[in-house]
Every structure is written in C-alpha cells, then in structure tokens.
C-alpha cells in the first residue's frame, strides 16, 4: 500500500537487473561490473552495501539480488536468500539433482532438513505471509522435481 506521497515522488525506473553474487564477495568486476556499469550506477556503493548486508552468510554463498535502477542513476536493491535447490543440494551433499527426476532417486533427506530450510526461507520477502507448513510443502515439491526423496527419519 503506497502512500500518496510515495506515488507522487516515485522515480522513473530505468531497468530491473537480476544478478547472482557470492555473499561478501561483490567486486566491481564481472558479473557486477558490466551489468551495473551500463546504467552508470555507483559500483562501489553497491558492492560495499551488498557486502555489509551479506556478512552474516557464509562467504561465497550465491545470493540472488535484484537491483532497480532509476533514471537518475540511483538504485535500490533487495537481496534474496539462496535458492531452495541450492540449499537442498548442500543439505544432501550432492552436486546436481537426479538426471531423471520421478524415475531415479538421487538421494534422500529427512523432514528435519526441510524444516530448517523452511525456517531460513521464511525470512525471505516473498515467503513472509506463508505458513511454515506451506513453505515446507513447496520445498518438498521442489525436492521431488530434483529427484530427492523426503522421508520422516533418516536411519
């Protein structure tokens, strides 16, 4: 719900840029450089800001960041936590999902893993309105498309 003041002072958007940057490792070099340099955005400011805000993540975790560049060369950005598939791969300790999901099971995870991933994901701006249960269900869905089976208890 934007206030009237916000609507009146809304700056014209020049572009929306999506990037994947390792946490704490933003530098004015590719991939950040060419993408932001095109719109004359202040690379240093973005790198410093991004690095400061991702200090609490393990270094080199790939974070997806969406930058909104405005026509007056200013910008805003939001950082999202790493993708569910990345978390699942890390939890299971595998490099890539199964080659034939649905037919071939790559590995199994317990519901505790799913629960922990759901808790991390709940702090994401897009998932805040969802109940933990529904986040878990969607994670299980993603896991099954990767060929990861979810069982109640790992033995």
């Amino acid at each position, binding site marked *: 719900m934007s206030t009237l003041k916000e609507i009146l002072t809304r700056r014209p958007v020049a*572009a929306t*840029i*999506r990037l*994947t940057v390792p946490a704490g*490792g933003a*530098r004015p070099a590719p991939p950040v450089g*060419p993408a932001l340099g095109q719109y004359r955005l202040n690379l240093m400011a973005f790198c410093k800001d991004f690095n400061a805000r991702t200090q609490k993540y393990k270094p080199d975790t790939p974070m997806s960041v969406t930058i909104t560049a405005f026509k007056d060369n200013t910008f805003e950005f939001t950082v999202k936590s790493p993708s569910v598939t990345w978390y699942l791969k890390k939890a299971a*300790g595998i490099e890539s999902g199964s080659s034939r999901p649905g037919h071939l099971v790559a590995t199994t995870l*317990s519901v505790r893993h799913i629960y922990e991933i759901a808790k991390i994901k709940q702090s994401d701006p897009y998932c805040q309105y969802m109940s933990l249960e529904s986040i878990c269900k969607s994670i299980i869905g993603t896991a099954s498309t990767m060929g990861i089976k979810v069982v109640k208890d790992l033995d």
Partner: protein
Amino acid sequence: MALRHFFKHLTILTSSYGFCTLSSRFIHPSLTTLFNNINPKTQPLIPTKFSLPLSHCYTSVSHPSTSTLLSPYLSVRIRCPKDIADVFSEALMCFGATSTTVDEDDNCDTSNEICIESIFPESEDVDVCISQAADSVGFKMIPSYEVKTGEHYDWIKKTQESFDPVEVTEGLWIVPEWKTPPDVKATNIILNPGLAFGTGEHPTTRLCLLLLQRLIKGGERFLDYGTGSGILAIAALKFGASFSVGIDIDPLAITSAHHNAALNDIGLENFQLRLVSSNTSSPSTDEHKDIQKQTSFEAVAESEHETYDVIVANILLNPLLELADDIVSHARPGAGIGLSGILSEQVPCIIDRYSPLLDNISVSEIDDWACLSDTVITSCNTLSIFAVTHTRTGINVYF
C-alpha cells in the same frame, strides 16, 4: 548420526569468518592499466612495465576466476512477450546467465514485447541455455535474440564518467582526476579510484574523513588499515599528519593508492603502502621482492613493529571481528582508533568484540552506517574506537 550429518551440511551461518571481502578475487593486473589508460585528459601515470612484475608474481597464486575476469563476455539481447519476461529472466539465471537486465523501455510500450539483455560468460552455449529456459517456462517458441561480444572497456568507461567532485565537508573536496576542482582554495584530494574501494562518496568514507579531521591535530603517525584507494591515508597527510601508512590485501588497491598519492604530490618520505597477505596479518616480504625492486614499495622488516597514533579501519564486519587483535596491536597506548564499514545493526557486535581492548567507545552514524571511535586501552589508558556507521536520517551522534 543423522543429526551430525544434518548440522554439518546446514551450517550457513558460521562463526568462522573467512577474510574474503577484499581478496576473494585477484583481478588480473592488466585491468589496472586499462583503467589508467582510459582517462581522457591524462596519460597513464604508471608505466606499463609496472604491471608486468605484478602479473609475474601472481601467476603462482592459483585462483579460478583470474582467467575469466578479463575475457570478453557475451551480451545477448532477447525479445520476448512482456508477460513472461520476469519468469523467463529467472529461468535464464538458473541455466547459466550471470545476469539479466530488463529494460523499462518506453518505446516497447506499443508492441507486446520487451527486451531482456543478458550477460553470459564466454564459454557458455547461448543457444542451449535459451532453449532450456524457454522450455522450463512453458514457452513454445524460442524467442529471437542477437549475441554481441561485450568488451570490458565499455562499462569501465561508463562508470568513470559518473564520478563528480564531492564536497565532504566545508573546505574539503574529493575530485576525480579528470575534472577540475570547483574550489581551488579548499583542501582538494584528487583521486582515480580505479577498481579499489574509496571514491569519497560513500557515507562511511565521509564519516571517517570527518573523524580524521577531529583526531588529527598535526604530527601524528597514521595507519589506514584496508586502504583501498588510499583516500584516508592521503586525507590524513593533508590534515597535518606527519606520516601515513596504508595497508591492504588487494594488490589493485595498493596500485591505486600509489597512483593517487602521486596525483596529490605526496612523496614516499611520509607515505608508505604495504601489501599484506590475507592469511596472516603481517606483511610477507618474500613474495613481493620483485615488486619492491621496481616499484619502490617499502618492505616491512618483521623485527620493527611500529605503532601509530591514529588508526582507521574502514572494512567490513567480519574482517573487523577477526583482526581486532591485530588492529589494536599496531596502536600505541592512548591512540585513537576508528572502525567503519559496518551497519548500525552490527554495532553491538563490534562493541562486544572490542570492549576488552578499547575504552570510551563512541558511535556516530550517517544513514544506517556507523562509525565507532575509541581509544586504546593500555594498562592504564584506553583507546576510543570511532565506529563510523551510515544512517539514512542523517543524524550524527557524537559523544
């Protein structure tokens, strides 16, 4: 057993911080010459032979990204219907694009299509990637696209064009190398930041400069811990410090700082730069012998451990926590220390870490960023750490 496996893999928030922020990628040294050569007005001040010893020295440092950093990237322009643009760009990211940009182009309003510009590493197969992405969003046709090879020259030049002279405070300006200072009588620091941090526009730099103005009364020895472009070390000298040392783990930063010192007519008798390795915090003299011969950086003998009157560290939270002991060890008793590069919410953490070492901690903030200022505790004295933070409301709280 299951629990152990589980915790091992899900430690995302870790207590052992790697000193990753400044040194994770060694940018190829010839990129510096690229930066220096682009300035329209000036000739490159660093002769090309300067960059060769660096590349010679660092070939032994094996790092996966050095080879790809200067290689041309592929820039692909794709036209696709507006309604799937968002989902399609997400899919592209999953299948190998390093970044996607959606233009809010007014010209495209009339047609149903929108342009997505995507950047791929050169080795990537663009065809396969786009068709896989289109498949995954359920788009039947493959959208039309054209591939261009992008050169790093383009975006570097555009970034440099956006630097303007900045007035930090009354009588202190930071001016890019290729522009003329608007106020010739003020204290002007001339900069070409290159690829190093510290252009003068960032609030943490601003807070540190204001802090320096207060702390430096004349004749002090100053240490810039994590010097970046060298801006704080140069500013200290301009404010009246007698001797300034800048250390950094990024060789590009040292090069930039050296260049900036030359721009401000600062000689080596009161300005030194040292490259330290990121594993230990002490300078290593062996690796850099070749550099020292040709660039006259001063080597630091291990036996002399110099102490400084004022130290400022404008880096990031994790390095500050990890290097607390080292930073304080460089200070003489009663010296002033400034810590910055942290967000307001990270201040309690820093205060916790530094309170056994320092006293009289005062915090100043601009716009969500904080600066801690303290004095060193010695057996009887204490250091006040000035933590420079950034706050959006523009409130400066000085104790």
